């Protein structure tokens, strides 16, 4: 592990830095594309089935585990249509515009913490930039273009309207999202995600910024086009932006929605629920003092797995809410975002500021 640290410190040679960055990107991409997204598809179907009182996929492979593989192969072999009057280049680029920002945002998500014996300590992520969460918000706001370009390039007036609806919803709910994140940055004193998790060692931020958590969670639902904010793509009611896409392009849009969900769940866990910390008042360091095990050293994967468990819990809540709540109508959706969530997020900022002054005085 000490040789690993020579690859990760800031003043390693450029070649070492480039190779270590590429390796980290490769690991994250492989974990996402190979493990997390197919797992997400499988668990969505199984859990939806359980909520609805039926069995879900159980024929293909043991417990239906190979169903995702079968679906993937089916989608690859489907005919790749494009409408005749579609703008070819933009039609091809639509899924790419959607795919790139979500995966770029994964670059600043830390998955754990590692402290070597020689005192070098760092969170495990691809790029530890100073602007952390702001980079994340900036890149996530570029995801709107995939929907817009996808809807327009299909050369279909219904998909154009669907794309405009969906992107209007996305940019409307970006503002309360950003404001609740600013409440967290105020509490933590830094925009770096590693610092935000470290600042939660006395208390998780879900308690002081409680209103902010609800605002953030609702906005994540709206940003990922997930029920109850499902109308822009609403499968049975109205024409969405992606209906002209077939086979792998459609699968890309579908996967990007799940990746966006994973990103939102990871952010909820990191920003509000202490990331990889054990309990709201009890960190792994306290446990290490008690038991003597080195939770940030050799056993670094245990806090990481705890974080993954929290992310999985949030994803379960996503799937649960999908089959529990009815869909918002579009005007209800827009008025909820602008007239109700935005003032509430401002109230959250005031509450967080009062909390900070109160704890500073004490």
């Amino acid at each position, binding site marked *: 592990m000490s040789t690993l640290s020579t690859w990760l410190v800031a003043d390693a040679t*450029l*070649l070492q830095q480039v190779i270590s960055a590429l390796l980290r990107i490769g690991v994250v991409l492989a974990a996402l594309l190979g493990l997390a997204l197919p797992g997400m598809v499988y668990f969505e179907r199984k859990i939806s089935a359980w909520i609805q009182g039926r069995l879900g996929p159980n024929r293909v492979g043991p417990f239906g585990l190979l169903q995702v593989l079968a679906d993937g192969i089916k989608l690859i072999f489907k005919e790749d249509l494009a409408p005749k009057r579609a703008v070819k280049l*933009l039609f091809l680029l639509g899924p790419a515009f959607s795919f790139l920002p979500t995966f770029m945002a994964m670059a600043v998500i830390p998955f754990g913490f590692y402290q070597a014996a020689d005192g070098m300590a760092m969170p495990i992520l691809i790029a530890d*930039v*100073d*602007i952390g969460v*702001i*980079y994340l*918000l*900036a*890149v996530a*706001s*570029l995801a*709107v*273009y995939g929907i*817009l*370009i996808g809807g*327009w390039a299909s050369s279909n007036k219904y998909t*154009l309207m669907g*794309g*405009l609806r969906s*992107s*209007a919803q996305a*940019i409307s709910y*970006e503002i309360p999202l950003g404001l609740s994140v600013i409440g967290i940055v105020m509490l933590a004193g830094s*925009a770096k995600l590693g610092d935000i998790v470290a600042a939660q060692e006395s208390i998780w931020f879900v308690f002081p910024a409680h209103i902010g958590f609800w605002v953030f969670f609702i906005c994540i639902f709206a940003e990922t086009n997930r029920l109850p904010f499902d109308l822009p793509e609403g499968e049975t009611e109205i024409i969405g932006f992606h209906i002209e896409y077939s086979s792998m392009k459609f699968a890309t849009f579908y996967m990007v929605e799940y990746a966006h969900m994973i990103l939102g769940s990871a952010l909820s866990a990191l920003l509000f629920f202490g990331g990889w910390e054990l309990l709201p008042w009890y960190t792994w360091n306290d446990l290490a003092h008690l038991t003597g095990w080195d939770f940030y050293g050799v056993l670094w994967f245990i806090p990481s797995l705890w974080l993954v468990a929290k992310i999985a819990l949030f994803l379960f809540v996503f799937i649960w809410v999908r089959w529990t709540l009815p869909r918002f109508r579009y005007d209800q959706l827009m008025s909820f975002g602008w007239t109700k969530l935005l003032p509430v997020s401002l109230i959250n900022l005031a509450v967080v500021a009062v909390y900070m002054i109160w704890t500073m005085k004490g």
Partner: protein
Amino acid sequence: MSPQLFLDILTYSAMSLTVVLSIVVVSARSPIFAALCLITSLLTAAVLFVLLKATFIAAAQVLIYAGGILVLFIYILMLLGVESSLWRRRQKIILVALFLLMFVAGLLPLSLLFGPAADIMSTSVADDFGTIRGFGSLLLQQYAFAFEIISVVLVAVIVGVVYLTRKKSR
């Protein structure tokens, strides 16, 4: 490959991309294509900002400019269904001639002010240059009045836009 060479290649390619994309924006046939090239040129400008260590402004540019204003642009383009205007040959010649003239005219003051030895990257900067902390402390202490005024301006703009686009009752 030395770090300096890598940074130089990155810098020059970002600069040339910005210039080329701006040319495409100004002369493209389809306005949607021009808007997409404008978005990309804003992103390459953000890359230039990061190379100049202004990380917060790079994020702010992507967040507000490319992620907000340009979305509005594309909305209008899609809703109004604009066709493009073609350029005539005489216009193109005049354009290129004017450009060359002004380019040469602009280079003279630049070379007088900053000789070839001036190297921007060699100036050392403070630790919190370009960070949120440095930016915020300057904005809210020295420029606090301008900050408040601009929020009033934005409220005025919102009121104006809502008024301009209201439904006119008969």
